[in-house]
């Protein structure tokens, strides 16, 4: 999957789970500081990423991810490398 495609899908998931305007979700958005994610929303976000990309992530490492950009990079570790 191309990096840009991952990024767009990550942003869609973030906007849906955190219930924020998709336009407010940028690469640098911090889930907690910028988008108001509570601990409950953070857990739901991990589950939503796994569902969206059909992957199983290291949950403790996933909870340490703080920004959209970091989430894209983290998720990319679990996806097949584009040919």
């Amino acid at each position, binding site marked *: 999957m191309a990096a840009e495609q991952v990024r767009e899908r990550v942003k869609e998931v973030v906007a849906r789970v955190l219930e924020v305007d998709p336009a*407010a979700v940028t690469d640098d958005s911090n889930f907690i500081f910028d988008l108001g994610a*509570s*601990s409950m929303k*953070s857990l*739901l976000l991990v589950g939503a990423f796994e569902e969206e990309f059909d992957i199983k992530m290291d*949950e*403790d490492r996933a909870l340490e991810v703080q920004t959209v950009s970091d989430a894209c990079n983290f998720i990319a570790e679990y996806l097949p490398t584009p040919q």
Partner: protein
Amino acid sequence: MTRGNHSNDTAPLMRIAPGEIHVWRARVSDFAPHARALESLLSQEEHTRANRYSTSQGCNAFIIRRSLRRLLLSSYLGVAPDALVFKDGPHGKPMLEARLNRKARLRFSTSSSGDQILMAFANDREVGVDIEVLRPVTWEQLAPWFLPEWMVTTLTKMNAQDRQNRFFRLWSRMEACVKTSGNGITAKLGTDQAIPPWCAPSAPHEWGMEVRDLHVSPECRAAIAASGSDWHIRMFRIPRTIAYPPERPTRVIAAHN
């Protein structure tokens, strides 16, 4: 340094008696008209964070939560509210800078959900508080993170309303325990224990703390945890007058619940 009219040089300090934990409650909406005035109490870093919220509602709620925390801490410590300096603990638990917290005695914890705010203050013991407005939630996704299998099964068998009530009761207790421990939420928290404290607060456990339910309003579930068990709670409501410069009292006057 003190800005605006939120000085506190004259009134007596709030005192926490031995064994007491003070719990303060407020509604964001009660203070919304004063968000701009309260903003002057925040640090530059807090200003920056407030302005990063994507909605004015989120921005104002952040300003109100942080300024009320500063005003209450000021009343316990005798330090001007805008002079308080915070630092994050290892897992993000906010702490006061040591020089402002004489003998490092005062501990605090804050929580908010919807319009509700709770803040807890204790001396010489760690404390954690959590409040959750009852709302639809995909409980089946969240429960395996912090509940043992037998409790997930119990929830599954309940009707929707009872399940929502029980789920938020368990969640608020778990959050209070985690905040008290300062360790943060981790994967499969408590699922390797037969009875984590949030499932049966009176059962023996190894967390070195006690967790109790708080009754704030019918639309919420809330809990408090604190190290040890030799403590009792005093509940107060944060008076709106705390935000009224220049006429407001220079110290918090507690309004009993």
